[in-house]
């Protein structure tokens, strides 16, 4: 059995191996690069890497996969800050404050903040995984269909906070929800909006939709505005390593975001993307700097990046303790585990404590590596800004096509990419944020299938959502979040006067 004190020592001999460490360095560099390049995503990296790991031993395979996984989650913020194109789905929220900071000439500062807080989130979450996974597993077991539904509702409730224009945000979210209904429904296997295309049976793929909206869409609208030759090239790269006094001002935001990130990350099917959205939305609701968020506030970066990286370690909790993959990336990790004869679950902690411990160490190592490479490399990342857009954009477009194709080896996904590129362009043109659309698209299937399943389980009794304690709390919280602007803006003095006046 894996004792608490052994969590991080038992696996050390397995990790202290030249090939494992070299693969960890490679994985980290590859992850940052793939994460940063708009178009290439962590999911794609995993899909390509996994067949390469078939001939490796478990430590080598996981060294490469885990470090790539966490580094890609950080790397996504680079594309978001420098180009307004999130490299990964989890970095969508990072664009909201990261790009305005870059335009203001604070790209270096933004990159430094993202690197440090990505590390903070990822590191704490990996520690949590290492020390508390048996406890977290028991807790994750308690969460079921009702709770998944409640969390998805919470995610939908924050939509109103992540869009500058509430009405347009809701329209985009509704569009996203509708898009998510394309494909075979998961409860009755009925095909919807398929039009005879077998490629649509599994629904629209997330990667080409996201890359189209944020990558191609952004490029089209830049062309529309007229290309610039390295507009921000004169920018000095300063403030890469934030001052301690600044870090201290972010502590409360970071801690809130870590908690949200871990909580949401544990829930299957949600993962880092939803974690960052909920965290950002919460920060915008209760944070001290809520009024300037969205205009280049560091708090926005801290909330988004801490939470999405906190989601990485947490997403591995249900995988390694119960054998349940939360998203596409952890599903790949599950495949890799099985292939090496490691069936995740409580039994793995008893049979192969050293192997489990080596995974924890690799995950921590992955976080350290991207912190080092991120801070060392940021000077070079910013050079992307000096590349004239007429050279940069064609390269990015090529990567968008490759990235969309490579996840499923599907030319159909390229068509989806192009269609959503135009949709993204039109949305930019009418000043509609695409983040709520992606959120609706991701949350739609979770809301739908868990609602339908819950109603089957409870024989149609809708009150169960409120009587189950965790789901009840989350749903009430969602309702409060939705209503709070109205409650807060209500003019109480008027009410008071009226009551007093009536006397």
């Amino acid at each position, binding site marked *: 059995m894996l004792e608490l004190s052994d969590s991080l020592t038992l696996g050390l001999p397995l990790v202290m191996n030249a090939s494992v460490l070299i693969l960890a360095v490679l994985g980290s560099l590859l992850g940052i690069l793939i994460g940063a390049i708009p178009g290439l995503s962590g999911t794609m990296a995993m899909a390509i890497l996994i067949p390469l790991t*078939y001939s490796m031993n478990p430590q080598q395979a996981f060294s490469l996969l885990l470090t790539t996984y966490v580094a890609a989650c950080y790397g996504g913020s680079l594309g978001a800050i420098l180009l307004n194109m999130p490299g990964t789905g989890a970095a969508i929220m990072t664009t909201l404050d990261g790009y305005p900071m870059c335009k203001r000439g604070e790209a270096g500062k933004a990159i430094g903040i993202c690197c440090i807080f990505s590390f903070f989130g990822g590191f704490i979450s990996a520690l949590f995984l290492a020390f508390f996974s048996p406890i977290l597993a028991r807790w994750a077991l308690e969460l079921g269909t009702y709770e998944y539904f409640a969390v998805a509702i919470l995610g939908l409730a924050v939509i109103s906070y992540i869009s500058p224009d509430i009405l347009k945000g809701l329209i985009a979210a509704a569009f996203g929800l509708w898009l998510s209904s394309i494909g075979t429904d998961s409860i*009755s296997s009925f095909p919807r909006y398929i039009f005879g295309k077998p490629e649509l049976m599994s629904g629209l793929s997330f990667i080409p939709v996201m890359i189209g909206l944020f990558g191609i869409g952004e490029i089209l609208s830049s062309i529309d505005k007229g290309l610039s030759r390295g507009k921000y090239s004169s920018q000095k790269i300063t403030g890469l390593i934030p001052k301690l006094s600044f870090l201290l001002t972010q502590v409360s935001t970071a801690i809130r975001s870590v908690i949200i990130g871990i909580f949401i990350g544990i829930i299957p099917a949600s993962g880092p993307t939803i974690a960052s959205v909920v965290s950002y939305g919460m920060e915008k609701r209760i944070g001290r700097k809520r009024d300037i968020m969205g205009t280049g506030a560091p708090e926005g970066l801290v909330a988004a990046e801490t939470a999405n990286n906190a989601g990485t370690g947490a997403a591995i909790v249900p995988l390694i303790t119960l054998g349940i993959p939360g998203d596409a990336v952890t599903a*790949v990790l599950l495949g890799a585990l099985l292939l090496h004869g490691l069936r995740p679950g*409580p039994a793995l902690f*008893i049979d192969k404590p050293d192997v489990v411990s080596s995974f924890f160490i690799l995950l921590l190592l992955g976080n350290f590596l991207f912190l080092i490479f991120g801070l060392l490399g940021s000077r070079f990342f910013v050079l992307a800004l000096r590349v004239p857009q007429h050279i940069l954009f064609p390269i990015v477009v090529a990567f968008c096509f490759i990235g969309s194709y490579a996840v499923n080896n599907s030319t159909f996904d390229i068509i989806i990419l192009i269609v959503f590129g135009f949709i993204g362009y039109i949305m930019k043109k009418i000043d509609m944020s695409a983040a709520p659309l992606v959120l609706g698209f991701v949350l739609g299937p979770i809301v739908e299938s868990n609602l339908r399943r819950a109603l*089957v389980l409870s024989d149609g009794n809708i009150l169960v959502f409120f009587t189950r304690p965790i789901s009840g709390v989350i749903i009430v919280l969602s309702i409060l979040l939705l209503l709070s602007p109205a409650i807060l803006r209500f003019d109480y003095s008027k009410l008071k006067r009226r009551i007093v006046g009536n006397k």
Partner: protein
Amino acid sequence: MRKIFLLILMSFLLFTFLFVNAQELKAQGNFPTKEITILCGFSAGGGTDVLTRKLAQNMEIFLGEPVLVVNRPGGGGLVSMKELVVEKPDGYTLGVLLGNQFLQKYLADEVSWIDPLEEVTLIGVFNADAWGIAVQADAPYDTLPEFIDYVKENPNIKVGAGSPGSVYYWAWEALMDMVDIQLNIVPYEGTSLALKAVAGGELTACGAGAPEADSLVRSDLVKMLGISAENRLAAYPDVPTFMEQGVDFVWNTWRSIVGPAGIPEEVSNILVDAVREAFYSEDYQNFVDTQGFGALYLGPEDGMDFYRSQDTLFKSLMKNAGKIREEYK
């Protein structure tokens, strides 16, 4: 100068033409002369992917040419099948056909399905995984007959399964038909989520193979009532079969290698040998045993009989459950 250039060009073209012809001649007598591609309809890292890659590795040894596995995930394998059936039937493009293609054929009419009985050349069935039942570890029943009695006394029992597009879902329907019980089937996105729901108390039971449930079994969260195979699995000798418990219920989800319809016999014979040799290779057998996959080999003829029996079975089950599309009602 120009004449010389033209001459060189012409002779070059002639040479290439002859060479290509020779290649084709060689191809007819001596299959294969280049790499073979297997389209796998599921993502890298999944069960179908790893098993197909292992088989391909061993086919390669027999054929002496590379056998590449290319992932074309989507539509529960349908995307890869649609692509396969329009390929040239020269034996260089193959695919992996799973039992669920027979379900898709009858499920709903939005997409034009492929008909495995008409549109493919069966090369060989190379795996069959047995369905089983997992329940809470402290449940008051240990065998399938005891569970059936419990269900008869306690109506509205909820059991988990994959979606109605998966072969395992229909095991419950088949069992209900056979032993005359009523169950409430709740679909989940995958067996692992359903297993977790059993362990967490949300469900009474769920359908799962022995390997999938193993980890939760050994941590005393769930127990297996049994599996619906003819024999116990080598990797899980403690899990009994339903046949031992006196319930004659067998249910598998299986995988086969197929090509487009109309592969010439001399080519398909070589491929059939390759799959059979790969299946019986020590490497593949070891892999199957250690990973807990079920080993089943059927050649083209036995396989086609099996295909037909599955087709009739699924059709009647879906008809009874009212989930079949209009034209078959």
